[in-house]
C-alpha cells in the first residue's frame, strides 16, 4: 500500500493470486443518495460493495466478507448478481438478500461508507496448478481497471472525506446499537460481564465473524 493512496490493497490468504481486494473509507459522504441510485440502476461503472460503516466493527469483518464472496465467485455458486453484492450479503448472518442490502449496504441516508472493489486480473501465464479462474464480467467489457483508475473514480464521484481503513477509524464509525441487533448480541449475557474493553471487543468481533460464517449453515 502506498501511503498517498486512499485505497488499502489486500491480497487475502488462500485466494487466487488473480484476485485483489481494494478498500476505501469515506466519512461524511454527502451524495449517498446518488451512489445508491447508481447501484439500483446497476450502473456498471459503480460496481462496488458500498457498505454502511455503521454496521462494521473491524477490518477483519470486511475482509471476512470479501473472502467468502470471492470464494463463491471462484466456485461459480454466487446467488447475487456479482461479487460486490455478494460481499454485502456475506456480512449478514441470515439468508435474506434484500434485507442484507438494506442493513449492511448503502442507503440514501448513509453518512460513512466503506467501499470495496475486487479486481480480477487475467492469469499471466503463471503456474497451471490453480483451476482456471473465470474472467470476471467487469474485466471483459472495458479497458482494464487498476487501483489508480478506481481511486480516481472514487475521488471524483464520492463526495466525502477519505480516511484510512484501520480498526481505529472503523471503530469511530460503529453504530453498536445496530451491530448488536443485527448480529443478535443483545441476549448474550456473558459478553456484558467482561470488564476489559479490549477483550470484550475481541469477543464481540469473534461472535460477529462466527455469525457471518454460519449464514445458511
Amino acid at each position, binding site marked *: 500500500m502506498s501511503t498517498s493512496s486512499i485505497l488499502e490493497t489486500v491480497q*487475502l490468504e*488462500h485466494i487466487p*493470486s488473480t484476485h485483489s481486494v481494494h478498500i476505501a473509507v469515506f466519512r461524511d459522504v454527502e451524495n449517498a443518495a446518488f451512489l445508491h441510485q447508481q447501484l439500483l440502476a446497476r450502473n456498471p461503472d459503480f460496481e462496488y460493495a458500498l457498505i454502511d460503516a455503521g454496521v462494521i466493527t473491524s477490518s477483519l469483518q470486511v475482509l471476512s466478507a470479501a473472502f467468502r464472496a470471492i470464494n463463491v465467485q471462484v466456485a461459480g455458486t454466487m446467488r447475487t448478481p456479482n461479487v460486490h453484492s455478494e460481499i454485502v450479503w456475506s456480512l449478514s448472518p441470515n439468508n435474506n438478500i434484500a434485507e442484507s442490502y438494506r442493513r449492511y449496504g448503502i442507503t440514501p441516508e448513509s453518512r460513512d461508507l466503506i467501499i470495496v472493489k475486487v479486481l480480477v486480473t487475467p492469469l499471466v501465464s503463471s503456474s497451471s496448478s490453480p483451476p482456471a479462474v473465470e474472467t470476471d464480467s467487469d474485466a471483459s467489457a472495458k479497458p482494464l481497471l487498476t487501483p489508480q483508475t478506481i481511486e480516481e473514480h472514487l475521488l471524483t464521484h464520492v463526495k466525502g472525506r477519505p480516511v484510512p481503513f484501520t480498526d481505529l477509524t472503523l471503530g469511530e464509525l460503529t453504530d453498536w446499537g445496530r451491530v448488536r441487533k443485527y448480529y443478535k448480541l443483545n441476549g448474550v449475557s*456473558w459478553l456484558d460481564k467482561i470488564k476489559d474493553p479490549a477483550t470484550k471487543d475481541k469477543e464481540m468481533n*469473534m461472535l460477529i*465473524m462466527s455469525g457471518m460464517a454460519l449464514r445458511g449453515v
Partner: protein
Amino acid sequence: MAADSGAQQFPLPAILEYPSSTPPELITQGAEGRLYKSTYLLPSIPCALKYRPPKPWRHPVLDARLTRHRILSEARNLAKCRREGVPVPTVYATDESAGWLMMEWVAGGPVRAAINEWLQRRRDSEQAEGRSGDAIVEGTREEDADLVALLRRIGAAVGHMHKVGIVHGDLTTSNMMLRPWEKGKEPTNGHNVEGDGLLEGEIVIIDFGLASQSSSDEDRAVDLYVLERAFASTHPRAEKLFTAMLESAYKDAFKQAPIVLKKLEDVRMRGRKRSMLG
C-alpha cells in the same frame, strides 16, 4: 504453496492450493479427515482447517451428503457453544460442498500432554527422594494443587457445554487444549501463581466432529463416561482424583448434574452402549 513442502503426502484441498504467506502444515490425520494449520485472511492470523476428503469407496451422492452433513453439524455445534460462552474455537468459514471448515487456531497444547508431563515430573521427583514414583495421586499434597485446579476447570467446561445442550461425543484429554491465559481471563482464585505453569491455562474444548445437540441425561452421562475411561487409560495414576474433581466441578457448573451423575453410575455398570445390538 503445496509444491514447496515435499513432505506433503496428501493432495491439499483446493482452498489451500491458493497462495498463502506460509505453506499449510498438516497437523494430524484422523479416520475421517485431516487437520491443517494455515492462515485466515492475513498472514498474522493462524487458523485450523479441517478437511474431509471425498471417500472413493462410498457412492458419490451418499458421500457428498454425509460430508456436507458432518461439516455443517460441526460448524453449528461450535457456533452454538461459542455464542453461549463455552470456550471453543470460533468458526471462521465453511464450505460444506468442498468439505472444509476453517476455525480459530487455539494456542497451547493438548491437556493430555500437559498432564503426562506433569505426572512424569512428579515421578522423577519422587524417585529422587527414593520412592517408587508410581504412587496414586491423592490430590492432598500441596504440589497437587495445580492438578486439582486443572481437573476442576475441565469439569466446569464440560458442565457448561452440557448446560447449553451440546454433547461432545468424543471427550478425551486430547480433545481439550490448554490455552495460555489471555489478559483478564485468569481466574482470581483456584490457580497457583507460584507453580511451574505446566498446568496453567484456559480449557478449550476442540473437535466437535461427533458432537450433537442433546439434553438427554443418558447422552451426557455417556460423554462423562467416555472422558473418564479415556482419562483412566492415559493417566491411570490420577484416575481417582480425576473422578472426584470432575464430579464436584461439574456439579457446580451445571444444575442438572446430580441426575446425570446418577445415570453415570448406571453407564459405568453396563458400558457406553445402551442397547446390546451395536
